[in-house]
């Protein structure tokens, strides 16, 4: 029964990937999107990364259905730190909970938190960068010095400070805190783009025709900064996932019985020598996720910006 569910999920994922692959290989229409898609498909590593991400999100979405046990149920006193076996694929932890099911649910939480936090950071970073770049002058200078100051603090140190001061963080506030500490680099990138777009003829023409600032931002600036922002966001998700794991590992992220990839590793740390499986598997899930996002981001950068392709 259990194997059948995984088989069904596997078929679903493979057909999804195949459909996407056919879409990428279709070269009939010469639209910009099709061109970018074809360039992305030319990178085998980026294609594999995308497939891995699809698999990860499908597994996360169907976690309750694919898990072999309840992630927070303590199974039996005799099942403490039980080594991996056929029933407990990744073993059990110090409390006798199934690590495999915890990793599935943990990935579900970590992936969702990272995606939402990145969304927040992209919105703030874009708004901030557009404001600074478009306003120019003293306001721009002040806004950028503030970003410089934030960039001088290692992000994990800032997160630890906020996490300690507001100690038990709910998952919602964790998303907000992660989002609020991830937008600095994006805003700098957006500002640089805006500065170059501002000098183009189309903006001068729009101004001559009487367009107001807000209209120029919406019609000319935003569509043009979308590409670099999308690349930065894809690479940014990898960073946010790792930072969320670090916070949960320190005990100031996702609170205890709820599994997240970081706090499963935390549970395994005191028993590392005797029950290595508890810390190993959630970490592998983290590495695979972050690697897939990094490779997909690299592929996306090449696909969106054809001028850069021959540099690598």
């Amino acid at each position, binding site marked *: 029964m259990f194997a059948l569910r995984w088989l069904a999920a596997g078929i679903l994922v493979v057909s999804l990937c195949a459909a996407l692959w056919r879409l990428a290989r279709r070269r009939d229409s010469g639209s910009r999107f099709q061109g970018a898609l074809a360039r992305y498909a030319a990178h085998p590593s980026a294609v594999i990364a995308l497939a891995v991400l699809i698999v990860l999100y499908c597994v996360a979405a169907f976690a309750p259905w694919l898990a072999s046990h309840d992630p927070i149920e303590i199974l039996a006193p005799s099942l403490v730190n039980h080594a991996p076996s056929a029933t407990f694929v990744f073993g059990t932890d110090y409390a006798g909970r199934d690590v495999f099911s915890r990793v599935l649910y943990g990935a579900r939480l970590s992936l969702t938190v990272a995606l939402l936090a990145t969304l927040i950071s992209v919105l703030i970073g874009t708004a901030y960068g557009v404001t600074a770049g478009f306003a120019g002058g003293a306001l721009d200078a002040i806004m950028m010095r503030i970003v410089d100051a934030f960039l001088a603090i290692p992000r994990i140190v800032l997160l*630890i400070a906020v996490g300690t*001061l507001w100690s038990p963080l709910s998952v919602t506030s964790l998303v907000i805190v992660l989002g609020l500490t991830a937008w600095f680099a994006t805003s700098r990138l957006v500002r640089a783009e805006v500065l170059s777009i501002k000098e183009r003829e189309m903006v001068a023409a729009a101004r001559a025709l009487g367009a107001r600032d807000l209209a120029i931002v919406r019609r000319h600036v935003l569509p043009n900064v979308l590409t670099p922002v999308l690349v930065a966001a894809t690479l940014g998700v990898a960073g946010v996932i790792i930072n969320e794991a670090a916070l949960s590992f320190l*005990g*100031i992220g996702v609170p205890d019985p709820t599994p997240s990839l970081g706090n499963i590793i935390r549970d395994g740390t005191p028993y590392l*020598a005797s029950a290595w499986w508890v810390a190993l598997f959630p970490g592998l899930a*983290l*590495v695979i996720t*972050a690697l897939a996002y*990094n490779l997909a981001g690299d592929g996306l950068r090449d696909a969106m910006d054809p001028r850069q392709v021959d*540099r690598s």
Partner: protein
Amino acid sequence: MRRLLASRLLQGIAVVWVVTTLTFVLLHLAPGDPYAFREGVPVAPEVLQHWRHVYCLDRPVSAQYVCYLRSVASGDLGYSLSQHRPVRDILIDYVPRTLELMFFGMLASFALGIALGVLEARRRGTFADWGSRGISLFFYSMPDFWLALMLALLFAYWLPIFPISGIENVIAAPTNSWWQRAGDHLRHLVLPVTTLMLMTCAGIARFQRAAMLDAMRLDFVVTARAKGVPEHAIAGHHVLRNALLPVITLAGITLPSLLGGAVLVELIFSWPGMGYITAMAVGSRDYALVTSSVLVTSVLVVLGTIAADVLYAIADPRVRAA
């Protein structure tokens, strides 16, 4: 040169001032009183009143801000409630250990990163290039604390080659000669430094590879090749010497990620540095210690960036003139 240094210093001071303001705002917005002792610890109200008075918490917000800036500027970073001594004294004990780790971590990651970058650029498009980039991206994608745990599992538990924690073997130290103690200390450095190295070398290698490829396209390289200079001599004398310069600027950018990585790496290997006490302060909710470590890391980053800029100007006359 002097103008460059002056402008960088002014910018740095501005950055530190903004960070100080930020820590003040954080302390102010946080629920509870930074000098309220934790529940379960009986404290006389006079003691509480004393600390509130010393750090101006009994005055209006504007006066508190001025007071905070003044005490930070004079080096007074508050009183640690978990260690029962001034934060400044704690930092004097622990920061040098972190700097030591930073020094060796930086050295190792730049050595490996530059070597990999040169290798990848020379073997561009081959399996070696592809594999080296893949492996370094793999390590780059790892959470630092998990990498540290796995190294501890491999090289301290399964193959007991390196010590798992601390800075020296406390039992053997009193009877050891100084060189035995130095060797022991180096053995304790291996795992934390390796973690930091693997974590950051991917970025350096990528940068070095791009710089090499850019330098290979320059006219004098083409000329040298046309004159029949051997390929390894071109790579060493013409390309590498030009491609090494931009890497200096990377030192300033790598520092924040190294310092951030050091927090959890120090915690896992019980390396008694600033990151270790910061992570420890989380559990005891030591407000003064946590915000001070934000301040001190940002000061270290600012100083590192200025040092990198100045070094770059010394190394490259074109920058100095501009």
